């Protein structure tokens, strides 16, 4: 594996890790918002 290959792999891994982190943060916010909406509707479950 050349240094260029290693660099490409690192860059892709960093990009994917960042996107997954953002998606997980978005999911947390979404679940919280859904919970509030359900409470507003009077449906606790």
């Amino acid at each position, binding site marked *: 594996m050349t240094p260029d290959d290693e660099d490409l792999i690192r860059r892709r891994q960093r990009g*994917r890790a960042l996107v997954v982190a953002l998606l997980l943060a978005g999911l947390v916010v979404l679940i919280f918002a859904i919970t509030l909406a359900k409470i507003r509707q009077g449906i606790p479950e």
Partner: protein
Amino acid sequence: MNAATPLLPPADWRDFLALTKPRVMTLVVFTGLCGMLAAPTHVDPVLGFTAILCIALGAGAAGALNQWYEADIDAVMRRTAKRPLPAGRMDRQAALHFGVGLSAFSVILMGLALNLAAAAILAVSILFYVLIYTVWLKRRTPQNIVIGGAAGAFPPLIGWAAATGDVALLPLLLFALVFLWTPPHFWALALFVKTDYANAGVPMLPVVAGERVTRRQIGLYTLPMAAAAVLPWPLGLTGAIYGVVASGGTLLFAAFAAQVATRTAVSDDRMKPEKRLFSYSILYLFVLFGALVVDRWLA
């Protein structure tokens, strides 16, 4: 890992995004949103957003599984050769895992946040697109897109079900509209990319039955499509805004379809009427669904 398996670097996140066919998703999301907004109930904005997100994720998941299964066909078609799998930028197993995971996530989230009816219809639409259309019909019959078209017709039904927990006559007519719109839409495309489909061994109607039959079928399918488009108005399910827009838009569609249905392509033909019908058919669906929502909100 055996010697035949090429060692690929991890796919870029943009390739995962490309697997979901974002351009196709636009129409799916729009019709789903309109189905939800046309429903006679108020939907909490957060839950409405979640429903549309689930429809988009479900459509993306189905697109990913479609690309996973069709990588061999995509590789020989110019239109699709640059997709992540045929271009060798992604491992097939990664695409499969992504598609299955996203399918399950979208259905579970829909079930938990909205209701079981919407989740069930979403699950059926994903399974229909992947198993019935992609795996079973596409390579076997020229009727592939007629029956497979149902998969793309589900979103308004899902949107409505997400809002009401139920289905009714209007979303069923919207389902029929998209279902019957699909054959003229895709066969117009197939007429001008016939060589691509023939090279890939996909039995699209122009490849198997020839141009003349395809043109006649475009004309024939336009008739019930027109009925499904206009019917909500006389049935009292929509108001005059939708009725007028649907009537005018459908007349124009019928005129373009009639031109395609009755003409014979000559050599050095640039297939302009077919390309026009294909482009207009996309606009047509956007306009009709938009008019439905405007009609509902102004009523």
